[in-house]
């Protein structure tokens, strides 16, 4: 087992190096000049030159990449073009917001996805099964942007139940320690803030969770159906165990193995989906930050941010694979 983990860990290095090269080259090959965007219509040739010089954009590509890599070795992701702050500091300020949102969305997806999947599988071809699979199809194909706006119209403007955007009401003070607002509110025993933070997170989290919920539900359903056909389930049933016991004690554990992988992958995908969700809900996380960076060609942010997200993604994957190996020991032998 330790050898397996080590091997998997070492593969991360070339993977991330590859990501950094691809992102770097893609950025430089796409047209658009950060200096032009920074100065807009008013740019004069001399001003542009000065800005390009300052940003190091006049250097040949391999020199620019070399510099980027050299800094990276020292753990420095460089400095942003627009705000002139260390990319690392900017990531640190925004990442908790994204993780918090993604985790809540993931919990929603796991709970409802697994629940709907089980119920659908056990009542295959029932009305519930048809409806929930139809719902799953709709969930996968629903544009997040549109869905978010519809939720806002219904739950905020018409019903007045939930706040429209942001992470916390502007009139509530919360002492920020970890930047995970839920955690911070609990740590400082600020119950008013806690209530408000939860209130704010519901709508964006539900919006963000629609696609993964649908995927998890479908996965759980098909995996459950397969398990239910196995002999040991029939044996369990023949022994006269209750339906509930058969499903939750015997079938679920095995049915969940492929679902765990799916959920792990979904977490990475959630962080990608956060770009749209964060933009509509004015959620100050990495997604919205990266979106702005792409629009403004902030090379350092895109490079650093992508690399950071890629790292999280592969580390979660590694974690899931290890978990998988723990659940199913046959995997690690190969």
């Amino acid at each position, binding site marked *: 087992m330790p050898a397996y983990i080590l091997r998997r860990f070492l593969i991360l290095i070339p993977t991330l190096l590859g990501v950094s090269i691809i992102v770097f080259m893609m950025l430089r090959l796409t*047209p*658009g*000049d*950060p200096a*032009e*965007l*920074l*100065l*807009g*219509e*008013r*740019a*004069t*040739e*001399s*001003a*542009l030159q*000065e*800005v390009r010089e*300052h940003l190091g954009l006049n250097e040949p590509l391999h020199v620019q990449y070399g510099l980027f890599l050299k800094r990276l070795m020292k753990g420095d992701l460089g400095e942003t073009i*627009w*705000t*002139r*702050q260390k990319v690392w500091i*900017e990531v640190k*300020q*925004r990442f908790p917001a994204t993780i918090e949102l993604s985790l809540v969305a993931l919990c929603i997806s796991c709970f409802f996805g697994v629940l709907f999947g089980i119920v659908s599988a056990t009542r295959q071809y029932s009305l519930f099964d048809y409806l929930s699979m139809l719902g799953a199809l709709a969930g996968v194909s629903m544009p997040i942007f549109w869905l978010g*706006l519809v939720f*806002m*119209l219904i739950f*905020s*403007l018409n019903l*007045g139940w939930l*706040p*429209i*955007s*942001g*992470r916390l009401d*502007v009139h509530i003070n919360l002492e920020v320690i970890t930047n995970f607002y839920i955690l911070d509110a609990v740590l400082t025993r600020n119950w008013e803030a806690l209530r408000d933070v939860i209130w704010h997170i519901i709508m964006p989290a539900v919006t963000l969770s629609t696609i993964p919920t649908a995927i998890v539900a479908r996965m759980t359903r098909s995996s459950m159906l397969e398990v239910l056909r196995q002999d040991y389930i029939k044996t369990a049933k023949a022994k006269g165990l209750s339906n509930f016991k058969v499903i939750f004690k015997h079938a679920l554990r095995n049915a969940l193995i492929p679902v765990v992988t799916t959920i792990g992958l979904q977490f990475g995908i959630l962080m990608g989906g956060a770009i749209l969700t964060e*933009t*509509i*809900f*004015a959620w*100050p*996380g990495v997604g*919205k*930050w990266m979106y*702005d960076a792409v629009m403004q*060609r902030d090379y350092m942010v895109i490079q650093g941010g992508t690399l950071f997200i890629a790292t999280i993604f592969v580390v979660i994957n590694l974690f899931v694979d290890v978990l998988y190996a723990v659940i199913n020991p046959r995997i690690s032998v190969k």
Partner: protein
Amino acid sequence: MGLDPAYETDGNSFMVCDNIFEALVAYADESTQLEPGLAESWDISADGMTYTFHLRKGVKFHDGTPFNADAVVFSIGRMMKERKVKFLNQPLTIPAQERTPEYWVSMEMDNTVDTIEAIDDYTVVFKLKRVEAPFLANMGMDFADIISPTAFTKNPKEFVRNPVGTGPFKFVSWVKDDRIILEKNKDYWDKKGGPYLDKLIFRSIPENSVRFLELKTGNINICQYPNPADIPMAAKDKKLKLVSQPGMNIGYLSFNHTKKLWQDASMRKAIAHAINREAIVDNIYQGMGQVASNPIPPTMWGYNKEVPGFKYDLDLAKAYLAKAGFPEGKGLPEITLWSMPVPRPYNPEGLKVGVAMISDLSKIGIKAKIVSYDWGTYLKRQREQPDDMDLFQLGWTGDNGDPDNFLAVLFDGLASSSIRTQWKNEQYHNYMLEGKQTVDQAKRAEIYKKALQLIYEECPVISIAHSTVISPITKNVMNYKLHPTASVRMKDVWMQK
């Protein structure tokens, strides 16, 4: 974005800075008339080369340090390439420049300002390298804001996130991508009027429709840059009202003057008379603007009322086209019209405007197609004046209310290769030089009127429209006015209970 006015280039940053900082010269409410700011008065030497600013006394920065001549020398001097500055008291050292002060460079201030000296505690002298009439107007712009040297030298890297100025509001906190909070400066020097508001919160809500929803529910009180389609909804809403201001801008269509085809004035005029600008303003600007006769807005001094502007007249357009040697468009190859991919204050929807234009052109027999790139590429390629560009859309929002800031910057191709239109006309170039070197405003206005007449006769550009800027606000916000420079001033605003 950041909060050090010398180094910012975007409107969002300036919107906040406008309430924290002040410059030596100020623009009047709702116009760009120059007024005393942190300087009570100024003298200009007869040769126009020396500007002496007399500073206001008893003004304090938010950190409690006094505002004085050294602070001015420090704030402006830190942007200079060669720091020819003289402090009065302690010889302050200005920390090394971390990056380019983009506005300072693009307004050519290094070529304008020679030395800055503190003469006594409340007098600063600027010596110029050349006579530059727009200099005074430049000194009212955001980049020329005065900052607290003490706060800056204490931690130069952090100043951009902890700004200290003399303005009506003090900086309190900033949650990235979420909110910036300012509070009332109780010791503000100007005792008449505000600040009335105890607290000012700027929220970042990127989506136009979501921002408008927040306004409708009353969670925010002022909504900037709404979707044009939301304006009629706001007008009907009992809880909202609209404030508007003619924008100090111009959206135009110009020609690739490096191509032989467009060096013929008849060709240019054929296009000018073929385009139905009224329909464009009505349908695409949704009425939020006015058809332009001059490339500067009518609110600016130097505007030439006598210029009639090009009227929509297909027969006249056809006649010009025939005169250029292409009757009914025969023999003319398909031309390209470059359309802007992003909405700008002066042109809400470049592509739609482009489509309307090529359909107008087809009516006189000109075949044209739309070309568009992403914004950064568009700006870059446009500058190169490539052969596959015939007509292009662009525009301008004024910085300081000086006609030079439109006319020289946009159309004097002989002055520099970075002028976007690259129209080269000796006489026009002379007008621009004369305008810069004349200090008397009345005389300058006459010069610019002549230049505008020349633009009308030669038609190097088709001025499309000046847009109107509209902000929906909640009814209880009182005395909120929009400014032509797009600055957001909250000093005299109050809330009705």
